[in-house]
């Protein structure tokens, strides 16, 4: 690479105003020293370092300087451009906090071309497994890796496989659960679209391990591109002899088929998913018996999530011990999160278990935009809960999240700031579950709706302390007596916001106030005197005569009379009506 020009990558990570100026400064400094033939200055759009002032990176030597001042420019050029030296004082060692196992090929390989996947050691795991020809050893390797189900529950993958393997049955099935439905989660879609062969390979290996000859991809119909690419992957794998009869020339035969989910969230629940594939109404049935024993069409069935299956081939290739070195004591490996919400860099990240929320939010996500205060992070989607800022240094694993009142879930991670109202957030998630409840069992069907109505009343300022008590009572009943995970966990968003942000509930109930300004019914409308031109339009349009005054005195809104309809706010031509808090 010696022939390449050196590159000076410049980026102001604090507020971005200085990027252009610093790039110019570097440019003129280079010109002054007649070095502009040896190096090129470029403004970066992102340099993966945040809130460290101006960051300068010299490539290809890959030297990163942070908090660079004007006076550092000369030194940087002298040491790192003219020579291959470093300026120690401002040197940073940026570390990539992500470890990409599941996403190792996403963004690298062409998902529509099996040759790309093969070139990246694809199907090597399958080859190893078939060479080994020992189911127990495959399961042993998965056991060693400590891999747990990435769909939410965190059940040890090897145990699921082992239960199914132990079943004495000619027919067994493996199902890939790609019915991703949590609001804000798109990990599975990304993997299926970006690296479908990883999942296919994982399924074939799983099929071999449990003794299945057939597997199903259960993909939600709203993922047309994923369906297209998986289909393509299947036919390419068949062509290569990696799927179908006598895989890789061995006795092992295995077929895969796609089944489409029609968009019901509950069909991500194992037993409802099975019912859906069988052509029945997608409702959960009691467990036990677990699908590993009695599953699809009554046969032993292993259902694994996309992410879990994507981890299988690397584990086989690199060994279970390799994965077990990553992560915490009880949670091994990595987890993919869809980091969204009030975050600078919405992204799909894969991080080792044990990473903290702080690292994710600030080092990877770039913090909260617009200098707003962060309030919490929500994990686990509608089954999860909020984690307030004071717990941001907690290492993320299955147990810790549960202890905090949330769950790992499938990997949605939504950042919330001061503009997010916790009552509103609880309402949002609960509404999702109420809409998605299959309606089979009474606690979830009716309890969810009752809780939602109570929350709605609170958000409208009609709440009382009794509302909180009822929320707790129903929540307890739903958690204990609902049939499936959806109903059992649906109250979590409410209970966790109530636990950590009870003050916000009290604000809504006692003071009829929504600090975040999210709950429309609690808006306060006021006339901004400075802006008011005293046209009287607001007064004429107020349906309840809550606006008093005249051209001479100006206008005022009587809060006791105001029904928060927003009419005055809409009709005012001078933006002289404010709405929000206080």
């Amino acid at each position: 690479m010696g022939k390449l020009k050196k590159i000076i990558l410049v980026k102001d990570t604090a507020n971005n105003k200085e990027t252009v100026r610093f790039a110019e400064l570097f440019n003129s400094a280079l010109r002054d020293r007649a070095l502009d033939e040896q190096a090129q200055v470029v403004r970066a759009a992102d340099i993966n370092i945040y809130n460290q002032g101006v960051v300068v990176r010299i490539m290809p030597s890959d030297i990163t300087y942070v908090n660079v001042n004007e006076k550092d420019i000369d030194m940087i050029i002298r040491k790192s451009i003219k020579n291959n030296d470093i300026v120690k004082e401002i040197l940073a060692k940026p570390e990539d906090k992500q470890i990409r196992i599941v996403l190792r090929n996403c963004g690298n390989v062409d998902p529509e071309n099996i040759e790309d996947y093969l070139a990246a050691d694809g199907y090597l795991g399958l080859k190893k497994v078939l060479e080994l020809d020992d189911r127990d050893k495959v399961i042993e390797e998965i056991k060693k890796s400590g891999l747990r189900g990435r769909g939410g529950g965190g059940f040890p993958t090897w145990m699921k496989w082992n239960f199914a393997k132990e079943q004495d049955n000619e027919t067994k099935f493996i199902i890939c659960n790609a019915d991703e439905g949590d609001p804000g989660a798109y990990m599975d879609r990304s993997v299926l679209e970006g690296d479908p062969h990883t999942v296919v390979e994982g399924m074939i290996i799983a099929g071999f391990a449990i003794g299945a000859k057939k597997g199903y991809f259960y993909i939600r119909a709203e993922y047309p591109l994923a369906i297209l690419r998986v289909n393509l992957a299947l036919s390419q794998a068949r062509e290569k002899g990696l799927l179908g009869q006598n895989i890789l020339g061995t006795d092992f035969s295995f077929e895969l088929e796609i089944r489409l989910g029609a968009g019901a969230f509950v069909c991500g629940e194992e037993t409802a998913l099975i019912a859906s594939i069988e052509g029945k109404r997608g409702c959960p049935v009691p467990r036990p018996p677990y699908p590993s024993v009695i599953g699809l069409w009554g046969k032993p069935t292993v259902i694994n999530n996309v992410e879990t299956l994507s981890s299988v081939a690397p584990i086989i290739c690199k060994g279970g011990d390799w994965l077990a070195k990553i992560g915490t004591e009880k949670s091994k490996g990595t987890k993919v999160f869809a980091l969204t919400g009030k975050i600078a860099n919405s992204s799909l990240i894969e991080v080792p278990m044990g990473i903290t929320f702080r690292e994710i939010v600030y080092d990877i996500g770039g913090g909260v935009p617009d200098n707003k205060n962060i309030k919490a992070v929500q994990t686990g989607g509608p089954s999860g809960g909020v984690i307030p800022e004071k717990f941001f240094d907690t290492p993320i694993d299955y147990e810790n999240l549960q202890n905090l009142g949330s769950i790992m879930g499938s990997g949605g991670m939504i950042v919330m700031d001061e503009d997010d109202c916790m009552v509103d957030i609880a309402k949002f998630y609960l509404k999702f579950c109420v809409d998605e409840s299959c309606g089979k069992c009474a606690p979830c069907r009716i309890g969810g709706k009752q809780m939602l109505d109570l929350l709605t009343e609170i958000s409208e300022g009609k709440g009382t302390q009794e509302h909180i008590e009822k929320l707790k009572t129903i929540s307890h009943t739903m958690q204990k007596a609902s049939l499936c995970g959806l109903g059992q966990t649906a109250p979590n968003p409410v209970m966790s916001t109530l636990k950590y942000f009870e003050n916000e509930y009290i604000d809504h109930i006692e003071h009829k106030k929504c600090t975040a300004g999210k709950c429309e019914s609690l808006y306060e409308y006021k006339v901004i005197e400075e802006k008011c031109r005293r046209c009287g339009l607001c007064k004429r349009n107020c349906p309840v005569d809550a606006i008093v005054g005249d051209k001479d005195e100006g206008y005022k809104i009587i809060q006791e009379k105001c029904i928060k309809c927003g009419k005055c706010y809409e009709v005012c031509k001078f933006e002289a009506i404010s709405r929000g808090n206080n």
Partner: protein
Amino acid sequence: MAKAYINNVQVEFEPGKTILEVAEQVQVKIPTLCKHEDLPATAACGICVVKVEGSKKMLRACCTALEDGMKIITHDPELVEIRRTIIELILSNHPNDCLTCGRNNDCELQTIAADFGIRQESFNKITRKLPKDSSTKTIELEPSKCIGCGRCIEVCQNVQNVWALSFLERGINTRMAPAGDIKLSESPCIRCGQCSAHCPTGAIFEFDQTREVWRELLNPDTYCVVQIAPSVRVAIGEGFGYPPGTNLTKKIYAALRRLGFNTVFDTNFSADVTIMEEASEFVERFVNKKGVLPLITTCCPAWVDFMEKFHSEMIEHFSSAKSPQEIMSTLCKTYYAKENNIDPAKMRVISIMPCTAKKYEITRTEEMFASGYQGTDCVLTTREIIRMIKQAGIDFNSLTDEEPDHLMGDYSGAGTIFGATGGVMEAALRTAHHLITKEKLSKVEFENVRGLKGVKETSVSVNGIEVKIAVAHGIGNVEYVLNKIKKAKENDDPLPYHFVEVMACPGGCVGGGGQPYGVTDEIRAIRAKGLYEDDANCEARCSHDNPFIKKLYKDFLDAPLSEKAHHLLHTKYVPRPEYKK
């Protein structure tokens, strides 16, 4: 046997049994609104949750198998509180219009709410106005009263294999309805009424016609004849505090007279007629080789409807003899009207049946009008007649026994056992044997066809020839029998059966869809026992020995299968679409 503890009481149990079942062994009743003994658990209500010592999780007792060594707690303050909350939630989603509900005083939801001492509605009312569906004029759906237990759907789909009912929509909007959201009359519904018999609330109900009957009884211009079906006599008592199976035939006659019926007949008599015709038909096919075998019985209108919809290719196997109800009604408006000089135009025949499908049968085909008039004018289920008797202020329990009216009130033991699964077969065999051998049976009981086994396959020897028999009850069990027949026909194999009896309801008419609520296999067996005792007490045990049957043929019909008998007492079957537009 495994051992476990329920509320600290040790219990030995058969592995595989649920916590709910084993708890009953130690006199612990775990409340539930969705589990029904007849049906697999739907696990819908969540009221039966129990705790396992040492675990935070709660388990549904209805569908969780008790495991060896488990320590179960079925009742503690937390469990009671959770159950109460669920009940309150259900009540918040229920119209709670008990006083005007058909299940008032006989409702599982009402009972459990009373047991839990619910004194207020804690939660906001979330109910939906959903239209009633009375389109079948036999069964009425009132989905706003549905608590979503799923029993009706379970019984319709998996016991009866009809798949007319289903859940539609989801979440709080989930509702029970005919699949495809069509009218019940357009669905494959066979009107067996098992849905209504299993419903814990008033969401599915028989189409009430008591007021119509009151009007007829009050009308001075009409002449009201009533008939009661075999199985009604052993079930009606449950409405008046008698134990199931108590035979109250003669009290019913008395009550019906008090209600104002001019003539009281017994369907058992026309069951005897059915046997005369059907047994003769069997002999024609079996001995004289006229017509195909096996012969399949057709007394059950729900079964007839099912066959016409789903297995119309089997029509030629069907006995053309009308059901006892229709034979009675036809004979009332011909034979009885003529003998007693009553204008059949003014005659009204009302029948008391264990069955909702009988309401449908009366206008099924034009043969039901063979007398020149609609044979049966109105059908009341057992549940309806119980209400009428109560409305009339009749102290049923204190009534003295009365006899039926003559010509068509006296019956043989063969007629009375029609009400239990296997009964029609047994009755037919008694007469067929006589028709073939001309001999008297030394033992009239054919015990192999009795009992609650889903499909009973056996054979009897008549004149040294083996007659192969199958008896099926519960439509879900029919498929097995029909498949065997179809397979044999396809492969030209020897026939698996010569004679087949089918009744749509589990247990036969004693478990009919119009019978008093709360039926279980235990009650079905006790009701059937009541009928077999009635049979044993009859002077004539075979239809052909009933003197009034002999008189009927001598005076009016000539002989079984005569032209007149064919015209009046036989019917036809047509293929029908599963779904109607």
